[in-house]
């Protein structure tokens, strides 16, 4: 059942070197505060799984926390390339980064298969693309009814999934409004799930005006819940705060230079006492 803990306890108790971790949130609700706590705790050798690595994995890769990244779109959305990921891939700095590269369709189906406890996902995809030549985890199956050859990728089953949500109630039930992405699948596919939330309310059942695009995860599917206001900044939380688009653009400048990047991490992540970065936003 769910435990309500501090973010530092949740990371310390559940995250360790060498694990596979998915931090999900499709542009929306990216769990930056939790990633920063992972950086502060000096976790290493991670396999980072995420459709859109975004700034959050640029930071984790940049500090050398990862040995491998499973992904489908490694850009700074709306702003260009991820310079820390590039530096790791192109120059092995601060260490080499193995890539397992998919398409969005493959990753989405692989999370779906993980949540559904299947060993792999079958879909119509990867036709004509060179991705099949560089990723040995793209195989195929033959439909026994039509003989059509379909793509098949392994289900994603992370050791730990971390997401950020708008709210949880005192029974640990979690609610996500707005763009729901693959968070439900990422949580249900994982062995352990940590959820940071903007707000803790008494009882989700009693909330008026539950939105049409709400996703709800029952408390017994979540390992730990941490109350972390602004825990998604500079990403956003529908109903709480907008995306900090200026920071996304500024990140191109910060991240394009190794020293500038390290200074930023020192000042904005490491120098913060544990969890304090959270209270004032992730920047």
């Amino acid at each position: 059942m769910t435990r309500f803990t501090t973010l530092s306890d949740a990371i310390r108790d559940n995250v360790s070197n060498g694990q596979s971790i998915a931090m999900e949130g499709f542009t929306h609700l990216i769990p930056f505060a939790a990633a920063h706590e992972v950086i502060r705790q000096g976790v290493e050798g991670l396999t980072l799984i995420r459709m859109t690595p975004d700034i959050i994995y640029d930071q984790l890769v940049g500090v050398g926390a990862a040995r491998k990244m499973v992904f489908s779109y490694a850009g700074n959305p709306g702003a260009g390339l991820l310079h820390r990921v590039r530096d790791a891939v192109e120059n092995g700095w601060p260490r080499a980064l193995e890539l397992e590269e998919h398409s969005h369709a493959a990753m989405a189906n692989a999370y779906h298969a993980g949540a559904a406890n299947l060993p792999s996902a079958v879909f119509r995809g990867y036709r004509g693309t060179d991705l099949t030549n560089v990723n040995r985890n793209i195989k195929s199956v033959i439909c026994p009814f039509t003989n059509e050859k379909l793509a098949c990728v392994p289900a994603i089953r992370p050791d730990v999934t971390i997401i950020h949500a708008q709210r949880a109630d005192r029974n640990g039930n979690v609610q996500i409004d707005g763009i729901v992405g693959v968070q439900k699948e990422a949580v249900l596919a994982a062995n352990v799930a940590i959820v940071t939330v903007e707000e803790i309310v008494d009882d989700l059942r009693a909330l008026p005006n539950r939105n049409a695009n709400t996703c709800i995860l029952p408390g017994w599917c979540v390992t730990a819940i941490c109350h972390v206001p602004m825990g998604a900044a500079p990403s956003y939380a529908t109903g709480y705060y907008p995306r900090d688009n200026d920071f996304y653009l500024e990140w191109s400048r910060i991240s394009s230079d190794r020293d500038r990047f390290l200074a930023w991490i020192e000042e904005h992540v490491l120098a913060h006492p544990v969890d304090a970065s959270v209270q004032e936003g992730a920047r």
Partner: protein
Amino acid sequence: MTAISPKEYMTVSAARLLRNEDVCFVGIGAPSAACNLARLTHAPEITLIYESGTIATTPDRLPLSIGDGDLHDTALTTVSVPEMFQYWLQGGRISIGFLGAAQLDRRGNLNTTVIGDYDAPKVRLPGGGGAPEIATQAREIFITAEQSKRTFVDKIDFLTSLGHGQFGESRGTFGVHTKGPTRLVTDLAIWDMLDPEGRKVCDPDFQAQTAEFVVVSLHPGVTRDDVVGSVGWTVRFAPHLEVTPTPTPLELETLRALHARSANSQ
């Protein structure tokens, strides 16, 4: 009103390809501007879908990312990302996929993965994202990109998203039966995917194995040499080359106002 820029020609010409009844899977950047311009001018009921799950979204400003809050707040409904790729894209519900690229060839094949060798890249690009399956599962593909020898290359370094394959191949070679790239709109010209007889993809006799993008219209003031000089392959021009119609004042005002709103809010 200031002079019309090449990029404005590109966006307006791309917007004009879209019809009111289209269901359009929208990429960020130039495709997003074109699709929203169409919605705000001649195609008010067009359905715009972003891969973040937002269906029939009607943002007042252009999103910076594919999942800005505006896209959800102004959508008819938002679905999960697995559902978007399973039921909507693979489900065959998308009439137009609108794509850009870092590299493209004359057969409409796109590269957004790497410049150079995959294992030792000169530039590691973001990767495919939704594009590999948009390219094969949307019923038709429009491409928009600014012309340069870096982008318009004879041979792309990596095939991220299938166009019509190599010369001698077709989409059927890969078990793909959607139309694929039919139009290419740039800052200089409009290109159609035509076979040597001038037949379009929708023509039943279309010979995919020998088709390529052919310039059918030059934007006003653009010369054949301008086009040739910014493309890394031997360019074919249509026998009857059109001049791209000038954007109307309404189109131009709407586009500029859209960009102004988008800049202000960021």
